[in-house]
């Protein structure tokens, strides 16, 4: 019974994930696209929970759906009507090529999956209940992966400085 419930939750989350993904790509108003991406990130967080990645699910909602998307919505609001993204334009050949390329990517992954199916893909390792908890993630992050941790902090610092530099208006450009 519990297993059926997990499958139901999985199908709802996966369906919501793909549906909102299509919405992000197809909507013409970037504001609605950004809102759809928040739904996409939230349903992905549910999938993360099913994969016993509790800390990452929380980080996904806090960092992505919270901080990053709010920043995005502020920029869309700042741009106002200029942000509208109509579908029109673009050479039809380019469009066809894009669809073929995306389909090729998908077919490749599905074929590789089909070839590997049944072996290692269906025998997950046994893990303790604390797998993916903040305590375990924190411990491994600050011991085995300390370098990655420090580099991440530098990346974020550089991005923050870059964002400020890009957003600063110089005097002579004011009247442009």
């Amino acid at each position: 019974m519990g297993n059926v419930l997990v499958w139901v939750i999985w199908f709802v989350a996966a369906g919501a994930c793909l549906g909102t993904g299509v919405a992000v790509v197809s909507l013409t108003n970037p504001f609605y696209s950004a809102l759809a991406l928040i739904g996409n990130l939230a349903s992905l967080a549910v999938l993360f929970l099913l994969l016993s990645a509790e800390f990452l699910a929380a980080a996904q909602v806090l960092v992505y759906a919270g901080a990053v998307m709010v920043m995005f919505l502020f920029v869309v609001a700042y741009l106002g009507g200029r942000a509208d993204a109509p579908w029109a334009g673009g050479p039809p050949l380019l469009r066809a090529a894009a669809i073929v390329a995306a389909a090729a990517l998908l077919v490749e992954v599905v074929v590789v999956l089909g070839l590997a199916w049944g072996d290692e893909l269906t025998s997950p390792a046994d893990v303790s209940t604390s797998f993916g908890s903040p305590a375990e993630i924190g411990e491994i992050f600050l011991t085995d992966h300390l370098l990655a941790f420090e580099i991440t902090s530098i990346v974020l610092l550089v991005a923050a400085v870059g964002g400020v530099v890009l957003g600063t208006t110089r005097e002579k450009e004011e009247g442009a």
Partner: protein
Amino acid sequence: MAGPDVGWYLIVSAILFGIGALGVMLRRSPLVVLLSLEIMLNAANLILIAFSRQQGNLDGQIFALAVMAVAAAEVAIGLGLIVAMARRRLALDVDQADALRG
């Protein structure tokens, strides 16, 4: 683990990555291109976490956290560029933005 095997997650992830790639290639608004990039990064995150669970090894989750941090940095820079483009009265169209020189 209860519920679907890792293969099911990989299928969802592959479709999601395809959707994101389609968005990056088809749409011309830099805002929507950035959003589609986020979808692609998250599809990769889903695979990392699925394999991390399947192998019983937390390294994949650490990698996914690093990807999240890089994605946040990328959005900060990308939005900065879009605001700078809007300030200079440039068209918000990735097909027309083909010169690095401001």
